[in-house]
């Protein structure tokens, strides 16, 4: 199964290969209850200077995939399969010492809860300095200067003083800024942000998202932003991957996903969110049922137990065969559903769109 979503931008300089490419990534965890199939064949590509949004319900495998890119499953019980190509190097098969050199340097990560993601016993500044000095053999004073510069850059007031604070002395927004500064210490080309604003208030979230976009322009880095908030994706990403049950169920440019979605789960997702810019006298289109168990994934389409559109399928069995992720149209829009494209388009315009 080779399925991929390619950003429309040109590939990275000369090599002809995309900057980041995941091919059929699988992550499984053996547990006492059985094998947890957290990620089952995730593929996408991403270019420098672009942002990819990954959306999906909790437990759909978003965080697990991002940890796989960082190589953070190595040394745990997790079984990782498939390929991850970053700037010409394959990461899944890489040894721990090799990938450790990339961590922080080429790929950096921002986590959801900045309070628990920083060590409570060390000064914020020292944690930044540490991130720099792992990869750069420089005296402390140089690293400290860089840390203060970056704290300033991410908007921490009087950074030379706040350098000496401990994480608990920062507010939630400041902590997340400090986390971003820490991630940027070594100028990584790829930034993975796992729910970077979920723990923050809207006004602070807006500040952090702006900051990330500004920094991206400045450093031309690639960003993978993982979230369950479709608004954040709409604001940040050029491309979107919708995950369900550890699989990509739909992927494509952001406007395709928001204005011409074709997968019933994406329809459900878009229908179930209330909109801040619209009056609210309509009923929300909730998706019935609950997300699947990753130990006993449904046999056919992962969304099948909750899908209301199975009667439109012809010539396939939703319960028997996993649909392939197939490209539709000219743009890089890919959908995993047994319903015929024409029929899906018709369903969307006639039944879904009027209610969104």
């Amino acid at each position: 199964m080779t399925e991929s979503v390619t950003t429309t931008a040109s590939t990275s300089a000369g090599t002809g290969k995309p900057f980041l490419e995941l091919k059929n990534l699988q992550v499984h965890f053996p547990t006492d209850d059985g094998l947890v199939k957290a990620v089952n064949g995730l593929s996408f590509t991403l270019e420098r200077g672009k942002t990819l949004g990954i959306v999906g319900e909790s437990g759909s495998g978003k965080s697990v995939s991002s940890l796989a890119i960082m190589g953070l499953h190595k040394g745990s019980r997790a079984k990782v399969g498939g390929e991850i190509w970053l700037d010409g190097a394959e990461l899944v098969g890489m040894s721990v010492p090799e990938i450790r050199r990339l961590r922080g340097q080429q790929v950096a990560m921002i986590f959801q809860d900045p309070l628990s993601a920083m060590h409570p016993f060390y000064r914020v500044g020292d944690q930044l300095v540490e991130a720099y000095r792992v990869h750069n053999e420089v005296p402390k004073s140089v690293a400290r200067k860089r840390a203060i510069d970056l704290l300033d850059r991410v908007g921490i007031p009087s950074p030379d003083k706040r350098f000496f604070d401990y994480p608990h002395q920062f507010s939630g927004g400041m902590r997340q800024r400090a986390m971003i500064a820490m991630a940027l210490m070594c100028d990584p080309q790829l930034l993975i942000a796992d729910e970077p604003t979920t723990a923050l208030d809207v006004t602070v979230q807006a500040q952090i998202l702006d900051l990330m976009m500004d920094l991206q322009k400045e450093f031309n880095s690639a960003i993978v932003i993982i979230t369950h908030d479709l608004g954040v994706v709409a604001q940040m990403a050029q491309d979107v991957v919708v995950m369900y049950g550890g699989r990509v169920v739909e992927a494509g440019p952001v406007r395709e996903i928001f204005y011409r979605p074709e997968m019933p789960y994406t329809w459900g997702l878009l229908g179930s969110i209330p909109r801040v810019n619209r009056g609210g006298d309509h009923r929300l289109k909730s998706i019935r049922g609950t997300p699947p168990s990753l130990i006993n994934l449904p046999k056919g389409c992962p969304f099948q137990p909750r899908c209301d559109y199975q009667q439109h399928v012809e010539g396939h069995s939703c319960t028997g065969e996993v649909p392939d992720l197939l490209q539709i149209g000219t743009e890089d829009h890919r959908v995993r559903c047994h319903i015929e494209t024409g029929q899906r388009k018709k369903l969307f315009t006639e039944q879904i769109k009027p209610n969104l």
Partner: protein
Amino acid sequence: MGRYLIRRLLQTVVILWVISAITFFLFWITPANPALLICGKNCNTETIATVNATFGFDDPLIVQYGTYMKGLVSPTGRDIGSEGSERNCAWPCFGESYQNGIPVWDSISDAFPATFWLAIGAATIWLFFGVMLGLLAALRKGKALDKLSVGLALFGVSFPTIVFGYLLLFLFIVKLKWIPFPDTANAALFEVGPVKWLQFYILPWITLALVFAALYTRLTRANMIDTMNEDYIRTARAKGLGEGTVIFKHGLRSALTPIVTIFGLDLGGLLGGAVITEQIFSITGLGKFAIDSVLGNDLPAIMGVVLFAAIFIVLANVVVDVLYAVIDPRVRLS
């Protein structure tokens, strides 16, 4: 920090005072008649009266309490004995033993070094082995080494100290004769030299350390496993830090924090006497002194030992709190 320290020390004084008051008044609820104990075999009403006068047993309770406290607080101690035969009991005065008339404080300060060396040596051993085994077990969770150390810990916790101590004594001293029978009851390092000193203490150390080492193994293992699952450990790895740095700088420091607390309290408790171990190896430390005093109904001695032990426990509490504040900035700054 300075103000915090002063506040804590003041609190300590209050707590010690409360403990001393409680011990003193408990002392008076005990049915034994102290005068009878002191005058011994040839008692008659007259001698009892003299004894009562000498020790002030006729005075109202509150006056006696005042006298007792004076001995503890006044820099010159207090006088003991009836008029004419007064003798000074120097500070800190816990009174004189009913059994042999020696000032209790003298006996305590004689007995303390043995207990001190016993506790310090054992603590070093159990801290080292407990933390090391616990750490290895946590890092090899589920593997053979983990199971071995968990098994050892279970063995250590469930093996009664008294059985273990006598077993060691029998095996190494009596049977194998690797260690000569201890000839000094209280080996001072300067008098006997390091070899004899070690020979004297090694078995008691192991005996005392066993249970603690087992408990600390379990504790370190559990803490370390929890800590290594923390988000900030994942962050440390994501920065590209080596596994050694991740484990020792980021992991172990957090995992050991609660252990510092427990270690302080355990050590503080032991400095007041390790009863069973001292008994087994006939070490004339505070534990043994306490037993002898209790068996002999020697109330001033019992009170002295209880108060002395309480001082260590209370001080250990302060030290632990201060250490905690030093280690954890969240405590320090709030």
